[in-house]
């Protein structure tokens, strides 16, 4: 490796953060430029990784490994495979778009972008780390900027939402830490290397316990019912770009943990827990859908729809089959794109109307024509209309799971019905009906807003029509993972 591209991916934002911190805080324009340039470079780097990626290799590519703490056998070990690649591209894409969407931030701009860039480092590091110690470091690094980003720039109950998010995730990750330590001390030779750990055949009882410890950490992040209660608060209070990151990337860190750590290292534990995973998934899908249906706050509705959609990822994981897990990974990507777009749309509406109360709107389709078009498009993607990415992912998941858990899969289908209900009901309440005279003066989408939404729509459509575009990157790695599981 001449050019450590993954290291640049992780630490370029950190350099950007230092640059922002050295900029005088009055020079807000320069600060925004630095953050945007860094995020854009990241996106380009992620595309470069995409180009360099070998499609036929299901293993780790572009690995960078350096000894970090020899006394603990901790390595600085980065690498990418078909599972992390979609997540890295998703993170880089959403980071860039959310950065552009952050121009609306007026207060304490310097601190905002410094923390935002630190967040990018944490997220990319989490997806690229292949050493459990390093993974944990990045996992926790994400927490701190997120706390501030919600707590300083959030809505009315921001302080409560921020600390709730922080404490939930911290509690979960501490149990994950215990699990990691248990794995380390039980492995021979003792190592934190995620790839080498796959060779260890841990005893079944040990795998069950450690799987549960890791599950707690990941489940809170996803969040899996009943650990989801921090999510509506955090999403509702967070500023729009941070909601995008939270729903688009942070939730995926939880399910990514299953793909990267729990399943390959503890296959026996994964099989043992799979039925419960399926049941929790179904509960999340149905519960999230019903609660979303009852919401009058647009943002809360999208937040609960995330609980429902992430349930499908878990359902795919529960199947332990190639089809289901491919679908689950695709759903992670697709949900990141679609929910990111939905949050941007909610934010656009809120910026104009200063309310998110769905019952207050109506007839906006006549006032904001471009907005209406985009909202309908994204809603269709979210409810699983064939031809858009959500459908492909959910269909694959249901297909992969049906053979194994027919009842759970059948029940989960209710979730798709519910998604149609709450999305269409939302579209109806916002866009259709009589124009409320209060909203007659609302302006349509600005160029900047369209710029942030257009790439997401293109990706949704492209994957929906021609899913092999992304599946070809994922399939070899998923096949290898399923091989480990059986």
């Amino acid at each position, binding site marked *: 490796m001449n050019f450590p591209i993954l290291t640049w991916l992780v630490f370029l934002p950190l350099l950007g953060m230092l640059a922002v911190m050295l900029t005088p805080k009055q020079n807000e324009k320069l600060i925004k430029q630095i953050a945007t340039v860094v995020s854009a470079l990241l996106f380009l780097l992620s595309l470069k990784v995409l180009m360099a990626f070998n499609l036929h290799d299901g293993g780790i590519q572009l690995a960078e490994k350096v000894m970090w*703490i020899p*006394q603990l056998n901790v390595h600085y070990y980065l690498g990418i495979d078909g599972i992390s690649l979609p997540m890295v591209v998703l993170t880089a894409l959403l980071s860039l778009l959310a950065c552009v969407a952050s121009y609306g931030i007026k207060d304490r701009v310097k601190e905002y972008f410094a923390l935002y860039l630190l967040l990018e480092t944490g997220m990319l590091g989490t997806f690229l780390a292949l050493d459990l110690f390093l993974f944990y*470091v990045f996992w*926790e690094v994400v927490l701190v900027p997120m706390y501030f980003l919600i707590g300083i720039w959030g809505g009315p109950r921001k*302080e409560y939402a*921020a600390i709730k998010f*922080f*404490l939930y995730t911290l509690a979960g990750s501490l149990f994950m*830490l*215990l699990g990691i330590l248990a794995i380390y001390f039980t492995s021979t030779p003792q190592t934190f290397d995620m790839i080498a750990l796959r060779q260890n055949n841990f005893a079944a009882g040990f795998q069950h316990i450690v799987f549960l410890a890791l599950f707690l950490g990941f489940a809170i992040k996803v969040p899996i019912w009943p650990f989801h209660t921090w999510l509506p608060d955090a999403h509702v209070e967070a500023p729009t770009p941070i909601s995008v990151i939270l729903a688009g990337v942070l939730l995926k860190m939880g399910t990514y943990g299953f793909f990267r750590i729990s399943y390959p290292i503890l296959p026996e534990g994964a099989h043992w827990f799979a039925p419960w995973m399926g049941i929790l998934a179904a509960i999340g899908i149905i519960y999230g859908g019903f609660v979303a249906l009852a919401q009058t706050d647009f943002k809360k509705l999208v937040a609960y729809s995330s609980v429902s959609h992430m349930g499908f990822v878990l359902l795919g994981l529960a199947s332990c089959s190639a089809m289901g897990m491919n679908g689950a990974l695709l759903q992670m990507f697709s949900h990141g794109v679609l929910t990111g777009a939905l949050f941007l749309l909610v934010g656009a509406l809120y910026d104009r109307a200063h309310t998110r109360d769905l019952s207050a709107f109506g007839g906006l389709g006549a006032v904001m024509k471009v907005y209406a078009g985009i909202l309908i498009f994204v809603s269709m993607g979210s409810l699983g209309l064939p031809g858009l990415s959500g459908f492909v992912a959910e269909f694959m998941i249901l297909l992969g799971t049906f053979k194994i858990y027919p009842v759970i899969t059948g029940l989960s289908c209710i979730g798709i019905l519910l998604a149609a209900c709450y999305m269409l009901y939302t579209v109806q309440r916002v866009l259709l009906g009589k124009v409320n005279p209060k909203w007659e003066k609302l302006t349509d989408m600005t160029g900047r807003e369209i710029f942030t939404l257009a790439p997401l729509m293109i990706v949704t459509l492209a994957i929906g029509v021609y899913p092999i575009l992304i599946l070809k990157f994922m399939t070899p790695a998923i096949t290898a993972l399923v091989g480990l599981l059986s």
Partner: protein
Amino acid sequence: MDPIASLAYFKPELILIAAVFVILTLDLAGLSKPWLGYLSIAALIGSVASLSGNLFDTHWLFFNLMIYDGFSVLIQILVLFMVGLPILATIGSTLIHERQKGEFYVMMLALALLLIIMGSTTHLLMIFLATEAVSLSSYLLVGSQKFNKKASEASLKYLLYGAVATAVLVFGMSLLYGLSGTLALTEMPIRLAKLGPQAQGAVLTAMVLMLVGFGFKISMAPFHMWAPDVYEGAPTPVAGFLTVAPKALGFLVLFRVLTIAFPVQYHEWSALLVILSMLTMTIGNVFAVSQNNVKRILAYSSVAQAGYILMGLAASSEVGVYAVFIYLITYLFTNLGAFLVVGIVEQSEGSNLLEAYQGLSKRNPFLAMTLTIFLLSLAGIPPLAGFIAKWFVFASAIHIGFISLAVVAAVNSAIAGFYYFKIVKAMYLSPGDKESPIRKNHLAFTAVLIALAGTILIGILPSPVIVFVQHAFMSFRTL
């Protein structure tokens, strides 16, 4: 080794003894106070610089009354920071009355000497003398601001609790001496083994009594009652010093006593320490949650931290020993750093309440950010020093199979996150009513920067610290 030959390994102590007398005299002669402070720091640096030769050779000094091993070297280096940083922060501060600064520096230097001696002995008589001398000096330091009623009250409380603890400690030691007929810890296991099974009850009683005595020094629950009041009442630089220095030495001595004198009773004291560890961290964390005085929050947090360190001691495996000392080293920089920032804010605001911290991120972004980093480190967030420490204590518990202890510690760490972030919230999230920037005090800021550097560097590159502790442990094991 006889006394004359021993002096070659006694240079750091000699330098400190000389400095105590010189600075005392210069104070009387009327040298300006800042210069006394600089001289004190120079003496501390000189004492560390005089360490020479192979640091990890083990030598017995003064007819086996003192020992020179890796851990005593470690303490000599740590003392430079434990004593040096509070002195540096005090030179330009008003928290210690200007007229009393001369005495303050002399007291601190004397304490540095006593701490080193406390850390370099395995002889019960020396342990008792050094521990008591450290305690007496601490009582005086706490009450040194004699016009401050709260400080006087704290000092008296400290003295009364301390006296009881000392009595219990001496009682334990006397029992042990009566049973074994020796004061040297190294001979204890053989002598105690000769006693036969019927005397084991008495041996355990002596052990538990000594544990109680040291438990007081390290603020172990249920003997921690004095800690919050004393730390709150003491002048802030002293409070910071007290949370790190006597505690670290208390742990070192306790570690030596338990592992050298009572290896046979490992299962008994280990089981006891597991329970006390859970109790200490839980009490510390639960009581910290409802406090609204930053100094009291940090005081209860330091009780909780003692609980985490006890985890490593309870395990006392190789990882456990590393955990204890790595924790003490990282905790030194982190907690002292936090108290230094608190001191700067207190001097400017005259208050330690959370309200005084509101809007600090606007009034002095540097202070707010450094205090946040110290608090994150205390909460064990990577990549800071506190995380490495937490990693080791958790590892020691998991490694030896104390799963329930590890789970209790994990839950506790989450609780701790709440109150540390109460302070962060006040600084960053709550708008303050004052906008005026906080005045810079360059020396105090330098002290904060040193602590900050330690907190961040150990977090990112922990290897040198781990290697040092490994060597120290190896030299200790050759005993």
